[in-house]
């Protein structure tokens, strides 16, 4: 399978899905992201790692304009999705977010039934013409999130009654129900136990076949396990971006090395 040495190998490259050029993010006077250039590929899991406050979550939230909800936050630079500027005036964030789904740190199902949780996105975007359509979309999303077998007999019971891991997979199902092209995950396993974490990681690996997945994680082991590309952020800079195996065996930047080996740096 791997017939060339690690150092010469890069992940099988796919076409670029999201491209960021010279991105700066300001919270009022404070510059949280400094001149970040990155290309996020399709059908690839890209992990953002870095110490707390390094800007990785902030940058992730730029990719679906979740930062818009914060008044003092402003984004400079160019971010394109399939070559189209997502901050262009013609792009509505609502439309963008249907295309770029998001899964959050804490499982946050709506206090509604499992069915309504998954069906909410398609419903508000008018993706289902009939109840039968919606049934199909919900089932497909739940299957894709590897949750269908566990919940098919209790679709009308509340989503908040599921276990933590199931809730997080429900949130993933909710995110994929709108047929997004990119999935952003902000520390999706930080509130889960190891078994549930493993299930979500397996799911992320499966989702890679159809989506471009970007995951922010504090667990370097998790980044190493699930991602093909890893980006290391430090103090708002993108310090190093490369093939995950390379980052974890032989990082080029001493800051990356210090961080991933747990040294004082």
């Amino acid at each position: 399978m791997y017939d060339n040495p690690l150092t010469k190998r890069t992940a099988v490259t796919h076409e670029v899905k999201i491209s960021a050029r010279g991105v700066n993010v300001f919270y009022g006077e404070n510059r949280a992201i400094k001149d970040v250039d990155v290309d996020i590929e399709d059908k690839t899991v890209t992990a953002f790692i870095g110490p707390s406050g390094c800007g990785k979550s902030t940058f992730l939230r730029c990719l679906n304009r979740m930062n818009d909800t914060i008044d003092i936050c402003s984004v400079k630079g160019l971010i394109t999705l399939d070559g189209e500027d997502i901050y262009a005036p013609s792009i509505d964030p609502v439309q963008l977010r249907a295309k770029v789904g998001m899964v959050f740190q804490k499982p946050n199902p709506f206090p509604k039934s499992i069915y309504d949780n998954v069906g909410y996105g398609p419903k508000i975007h008018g993706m289902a013409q009939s109840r039968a359509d919606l049934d199909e979309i919900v089932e497909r999303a739940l299957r894709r999130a590897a949750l269908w077998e566990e919940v098919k007999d209790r679709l009308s019971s509340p989503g908040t009654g599921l276990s933590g891991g199931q809730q997080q997979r429900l949130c993933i199902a909710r995110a994929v129900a709108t047929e997004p092209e990119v999935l952003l995950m902000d520390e999706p396993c930080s509130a889960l136990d190891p078994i549930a974490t493993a299930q979500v990681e397996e799911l992320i690996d499966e989702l890679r076949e159809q989506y471009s997945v970007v995951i922010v994680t504090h667990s370097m082991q998790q980044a190493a396990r699930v991602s093909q590309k890893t980006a290391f952020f430090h103090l708002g800079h993108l310090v190093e971006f490369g093939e995950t195996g390379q980052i974890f065996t032989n990082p080029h930047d001493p800051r990356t090395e210090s961080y991933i080996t747990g040294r004082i740096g």
Partner: protein
Amino acid sequence: MNDRHIVKSYDRDLEAIQALIMKMGGLVEVAILESAQSLENRDEELAERVRKNDRAVDELEERVNQECARMLALRQPSASDLRTVLTVMKIGANLERIGDYAKNMAKRTGVLVQMTPIDGSAGAIRRMSMAVEAMLKDALDAYIQRDAELAQDVRMRDMEVDQMYNALFREFLTFMMEDPRNITACMHLHFIAKNIERMGDHVTAIAEQVIYLVTGEMPEDERPKADRTAVEAPRV
């Protein structure tokens, strides 16, 4: 990059396995020198001691393996820490092989003392083993100091050992042709020389591990080789 981990016990564990390797290296160095000395001095007692001491090297290698396995399981090292653990394991295996060759030399010494000595051979073998011992010492120093240049130097010096072996090979061949009664002793001496040449190869492997540890990449150029005995007919 800072040297110290945030978790201090991580540093202690890393230092501990490297200390084990150094201890092993020290034992192996002594074994090389003593086995050569026992051959030169026809000292059966010393040879016996070298054979016995090899057990300590084997035990140390076992401990190094256990500690590395524990470290991989508990700390999941990455980057330079991962490379440290990986190289420690490989160096341990190399040292263990070198120890085995020294033990084998000591065994053959036990046989050789009962035969007529071959003029000059013991001195030549002793010089060769000293060269290998010096290489091993430098390789281990390069490891401790993370000195890739020194390691590269060690790697190059293997050629000298190979050349020494080539010379001895021809010499023994001559002796055997001169007097067939010398054949048994010369065969043993040849094996000893070959063992020392193999030790040099293992030391080279250790040096290459040092280069990998420091740079993250294995040296890509051909390993320097001067042992032509396997590919050319000897010109006598």
